[in-house]
């Protein structure tokens, strides 16, 4: 039987080679393009994924996981053809264990759908990337969001996984216990592996109690250095910030224009506090004092839920807002992360570099983690723009490494950042290659990503 027949027999019309389906899975959100799968599969169960994997292994067909397709570095593009496994039909919540503050989900569920399902439990799932990504994709990219400063990233949020390996074997990693010292941390190995080691078919996630009280604020600063000093002191003082986000003047301008806000176009912090009414009030007051001592201006509370949600809606819409700042533009989104003491320098050098380049590049970031993005806006038809932006991005990456950081805080490697892996990891990169070869000897899982190329 051909692979096509076997997969059709397995999945019926949920296996398709129709051009429209293939093309829909050959797109990415950004500048990274190319890579058309031969077929797309829409499995509904782990058993189907395992059978699919066995068939593809027998026929040496590449298999590429696909969650919501929102990754920014071309992660889910089929560089060598094969079957793209779209998990959108595996989108159920399997088990909510409120007492243990855990939930077991299928990988295709999106973070917004998950939080809708959790609403009545008094619990929530905190990782909130700007897109409505799938939990499987978020685990596979080790995603984070605005609340990582308080609740951590997907690394912290995933307690266990079910994974289909390259030969179709199904394994479970981790457990439902809050901690374990039982052997290698396979969960952490699959989190962030971008679909190159196995397909995630189930996740056990840590939840948190919905805060009784929430308050948020914005404030501006005259300089980047003041802004960062304020962040450092806030974190050092042990204030349990739920969010602490940064926008540079260009990003503020873009958001103002897009979301109808009227914020002062200076370096800006958006902060949020979670706790009891009393603790939130106290945290807010203390933050206010710290901010003031660093020369904050235009301090504004968003006490009402509507004001708060307007503020965060604006932050979450920052990416389209930046894109809209240059009509017709496409973006190269950078994602460096540095130790926080190096953040002011990293941002200021980047700012100056962007200004000199002539390309618009608003900067925003999860400053509590030392992570920031320059949204480099290029004319997709201009090779010069692209070259300039790529050179800027490369200098940002090198700068981040020089300052003790990483080329990607949360977006991952995909195709776009593969070129920096050797520089960032040195001799550790081939160790990743050795792991890949051990777990996927035929190089079928998302080939061409993350590890050193086979012929290198």
């Amino acid at each position, binding site marked *: 039987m051909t692979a096509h027949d076997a997969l059709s027999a397995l999945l019926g019309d949920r296996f398709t080679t129709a051009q429209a389906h293939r093309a829909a899975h050959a797109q990415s959100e950004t500048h990274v393009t190319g890579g058309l799968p031969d077929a797309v599969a829409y499995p509904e169960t782990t058993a189907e994924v395992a059978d699919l994997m066995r068939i593809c292994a027998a026929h040496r067909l590449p298999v590429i996981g696909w969650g919501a397709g929102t990754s920014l570095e071309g992660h889910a593009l089929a560089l060598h053809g094969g079957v793209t496994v779209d998990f959108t039909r595996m989108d159920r919540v399997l088990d909510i264990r409120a007492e243990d503050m855990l939930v077991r989900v299928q990988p295709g569920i999106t973070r917004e759908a998950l939080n809708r399902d959790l609403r009545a439990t008094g619990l929530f799932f905190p990782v909130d990337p700007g897109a409505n990504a799938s939990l499987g994709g978020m685990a596979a990219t080790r995603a984070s969001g605005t609340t990582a400063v308080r609740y951590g990233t997907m690394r912290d949020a995933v307690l266990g996984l079910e994974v289909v390996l390259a030969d179709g074997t199904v394994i479970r990693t981790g457990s439902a*216990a809050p901690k374990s010292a039982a052997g*290698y941390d396979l969960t952490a190995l699959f989190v962030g592996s971008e679909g190159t080691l196995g397909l995630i078919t189930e996740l056990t996630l840590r939840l*948190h109690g919905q805060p009784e009280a929430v308050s948020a604020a914005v404030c501006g600063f005259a300089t980047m250095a003041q802004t960062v000093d304020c962040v450092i002191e806030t974190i050092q003082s042990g204030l349990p910030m739920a969010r602490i986000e940064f926008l540079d003047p260009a990003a503020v301008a873009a958001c103002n224009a897009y979301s109808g806000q009227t914020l002062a176009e200076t370096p800006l912090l958006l902060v949020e506090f979670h706790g009891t009414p009393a*603790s939130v009030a106290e945290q807010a007051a203390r933050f206010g004092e710290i901010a003031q001592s660093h020369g904050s201006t235009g301090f504004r509370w968003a006490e009402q839920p509507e004001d708060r949600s307007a503020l965060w809606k604006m932050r979450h819409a920052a990416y389209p807002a930046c894109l809209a700042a240059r009509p017709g533009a496409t973006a190269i989104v950078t994602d460096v992360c540095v130790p926080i003491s190096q953040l002011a320098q990293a941002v200021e050098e980047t700012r100056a570099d962007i200004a000199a380049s002539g390309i618009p590049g608003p900067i925003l970031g999860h400053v509590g983690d030392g992570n920031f993005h320059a949204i480099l806006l290029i004319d997709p038809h201009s090779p010069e723009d692209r070259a300039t932006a790529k050179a800027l991005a490369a200098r940002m990456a090198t700068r981040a490494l020089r300052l003790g*950081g990483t080329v990607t805080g949360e977006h991952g490697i995909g195709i776009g950042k593969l070129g920096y892996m050797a520089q960032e990891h040195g001799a550790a990169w081939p160790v990743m290659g050795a792991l890949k070869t*051990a777990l996927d000897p035929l190089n079928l899982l998302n080939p061409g990503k993350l590890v050193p190329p086979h012929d290198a």
Partner: protein
Amino acid sequence: MTHTEPSAGVQAAIDGLAARFGSRLSRAEAVRAQHGAVESWLPQALPDAVLFLQSTEEVAEAVALCHRHGAPVIPFGAGSSIEGQVLAPRGGISFDLSGMDKVLAVNAEDMDCNVQCGVIHQNLNEHLRATGLFFPVDLGAHATLGGMASTRASGTTTVRYGSMRELVLGLTVVMPDGQVIRTGGRARKSAAGYDLTHLFVGAEGTLGIITEVTLRLFGRPEASRSILCAFEDLPSATTCVVAALQSGLGLNRIELADTLQMQAINAHGGVALPERPTLWVELTGSAPAVAHDAALFVELAQGSGALHVEAADNHEAANRLWRLRHNALYATRALRPGIKGISTDVCVPISRLPDCIAEIRAEIDKTDLIAPLIGHAGDGNFHLVLMFDPDDAQETAVARQINARLIAIALAMGGTATGEHGVGLGKMGYMQAEHGAALDVMRQIKRALDPSGIMNPGKIFTL
């Protein structure tokens, strides 16, 4: 002590290492015994030699040499692990890393530090005193940060700050062929490739030798409040734990002891606490937050049926309360002087904690075993010290049976055989049941990174 001669490969490695490191390679029986007859209920197994190392470069050179001769290498921190992790059942060279005890960098602004693997956690905190920062994993033994990373250790504050898993940012590792790699980094997060850091954390020295550890640090909390409360029964105590966890209180510690443990503590410490299931709780944060949380916790405890609540009014009183908790092991040992025991270490989802304890207690009650319970209730992790006389075959068999039974109960509840002590030799037999097909993935990883199989061979799983 029986002594078998080293294999030819090991002998060749010993000769090479002696030539290079001189008297820092020891074959003395006493030194070998210190490294192979350690705190453990398992039979001793001495290495053929012990090598005392000072730097990453030395470790790399020595590993490369052992690699050439196929000689087993057993990393050794403080030797406080309790599942036979540092024993040398296949002989080989114990690499004593305790001399690598320098704090290399403290970055107060970034709240991180970089230390050599042999730094003892208590010494790190001593070193940090002036900075206002601290490292939170506070386990009872003198242990090295390299050893703690390698066993994925935790402590009483794990409920707040996490275990070594959450606190290690990066590592320098000497691979089994002597190559030096750097994993992770100083950025708070990264999505750049496989998480090698977490592959080595918890690997018990089977994949390489950690020579430097980059750790997260925390600011000392402004205020703290300690409370002890006793409950009618265990389910009331664990109900209180769940309520406290869910209410988002600033819990820094929440520890549980059972009636027998409390009797032991009273007898050993000369105190008269209620002999009932007891929680020790510490809340930390800003002064107003702590005051608020403490009041709320007392309400929760009373709502869960606490019979006795005692809040420490000052630092002294709090220290007294916690000293009793930290001396629990000695109190236990005093129950049956001269007898040690197996410390069990299962960890289950919190909601299953009462059932897990009740089920095993029922089984223990059918035997004559003395087995007090103490645990990190906030993590669902508890220890029963199963006290038995290793010279008494019958008692030994019963203790082992109870241990096995407890692990089976915990696994059936979605838990793990070991919350913090690790696998070593002692828990190896339970790994198939816990991991199923995933155990083969661990084997594949081991073969890929250590093809000649020299790094702490025969631990966690057999190949």
